[in-house]
């Protein structure tokens, strides 16, 4: 029985050979994340390869039980360095990360893609990365998906539907949804024209620019911190997240700090009567909910 991973690999590889890949590049503000890291570790993107952020070899392959010279994706394992050669860059299986950032900077609509060190959006069961770059084959995938659909209807692979779903997931994640058709809201309602107002295409929570805002790491096991940077790599804000099963994402925001690199703005603390310019902390435990940031809350 065919499985989704190899089939997608074959499709992607064949389409790449046909030179119809499209790299999706975004040079907007980059979001990075970390787990329980001190703030001083945050500013450089280079630091994001830290083994403290993730563990595992990234694709569930037992390094000791297989040929270490030619492994996943047919890539060569360099026993001297312990890295896999992916052409464009080297992959370090011990931490499940590339050792240098991808030249593809990620899609802001897909937060997982913004970690330029991660392997295939941390989802090797669904995606493949034969070159070390994150190349999407968006128009071709639609064609391939349609052909697979016909194949499935003619009694082909039982897993075809799953594969087609994965292909269209790829397209959706690349932000190729039509902007002309208002999609359904989370509650299933399709937004319509109201009282002279004009409906715009509804954007699900966490999509679009909203994805670049501070968000919890839904893969984290417990309390953790995340931060975001501007296009110069400066930390503009960071937040602490506490587990909360009642919250849709499993975490609720504890403290959030707008640093000295954030857009300058001033809140009024109505309890203390204090004007609180940036940098400041939104801290529910502080009287009035906002206070000046302390030195150790700010990036150096």
């Amino acid at each position, binding site marked *: 029985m065919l499985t989704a991973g190899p089939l997608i690999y074959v499709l992607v590889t064949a389409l790449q050979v046909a030179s119809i890949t499209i790299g999706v590049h975004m040079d907007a503000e980059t979001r990075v994340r970390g787990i329980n890291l001190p703030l001083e570790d945050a500013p450089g993107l280079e630091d994001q390869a830290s083994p403290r952020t993730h563990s595992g070899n990234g694709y569930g392959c037992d390094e000791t039980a297989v040929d270490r010279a030619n492994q996943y994706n047919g890539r060569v394992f360099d026993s001297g360095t312990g890295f896999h050669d992916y052409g464009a860059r080297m992959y370090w299986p011990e931490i499940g990360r590339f050792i240098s950032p991808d030249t593809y900077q990620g899609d802001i609509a897909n937060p997982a893609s913004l970690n330029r060190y991660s392997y295939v959006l941390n989802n090797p069961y669904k995606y493949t990365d034969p070159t070390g770059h994150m190349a999407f084959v968006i128009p071709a995938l639609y064609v391939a998906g349609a052909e697979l659909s016909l194949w499935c209807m003619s009694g082909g692979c039982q897993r075809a539907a799953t594969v087609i779903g994965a292909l269209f997931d790829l397209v959706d994640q690349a932000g190729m949804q039509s902007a002309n058709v208002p999609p359904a*809201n989370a509650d299933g309602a399709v937004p319509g024209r109201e009282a002279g*107002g*004009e409906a*715009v295409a509804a954007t699900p*929570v966490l999509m679009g*620019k*909203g994805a670049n805002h501070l968000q919890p790491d839904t893969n984290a096991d417990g309390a953790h911190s995340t931060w975001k940077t501007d296009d110069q790599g400066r930390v503009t804000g960071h937040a602490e997240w506490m587990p909360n099963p009642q919250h849709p994402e499993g975490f609720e925001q504890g403290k959030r700090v707008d640093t000295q690199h954030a857009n300058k703005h001033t809140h009024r603390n*109505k309890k203390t009567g204090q004007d609180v310019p940036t940098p400041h902390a*939104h801290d529910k435990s502080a009287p*009035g909910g906002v206070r000046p940031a302390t030195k150790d809350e700010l990036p150096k």
Partner: protein
Amino acid sequence: MTAHRVAIVVDRAFGFRLAALAANRHVWIVESPTNIPAIRQVWDGTASGDEEDPLGPGVTSFAAKESESTEAMCARVADDVAEHHGEQGHDPPWSELEIVGVPLSARLRQAFEEIGATWVQPTAEGFVCRR
């Protein structure tokens, strides 16, 4: 769910109309020689002593960037508003955004769509977004 209304004012000459707008929503307003006295008036007049939510009805001021158009300013501040008043920043999250001082444009329409707006209506001084 309780409505959480927010306004963004990029009109540097908005002035003392601010108090009325800030009475029932949180207003993000650009700092300017005309607006700063109005901001100060609201801040000095609303210190209740027991208000724990700095993002409830009231005012946040923001600095304009040099040579920044009102459209660019509005798009920039939209991100800050989304961060402060969105699902992760405020409970309840924003349900209505009123923008004052810049007309609706394709760029702004996209900017507010990206932060979750599903409905937009032009007004005499700007536009209103809802979701």
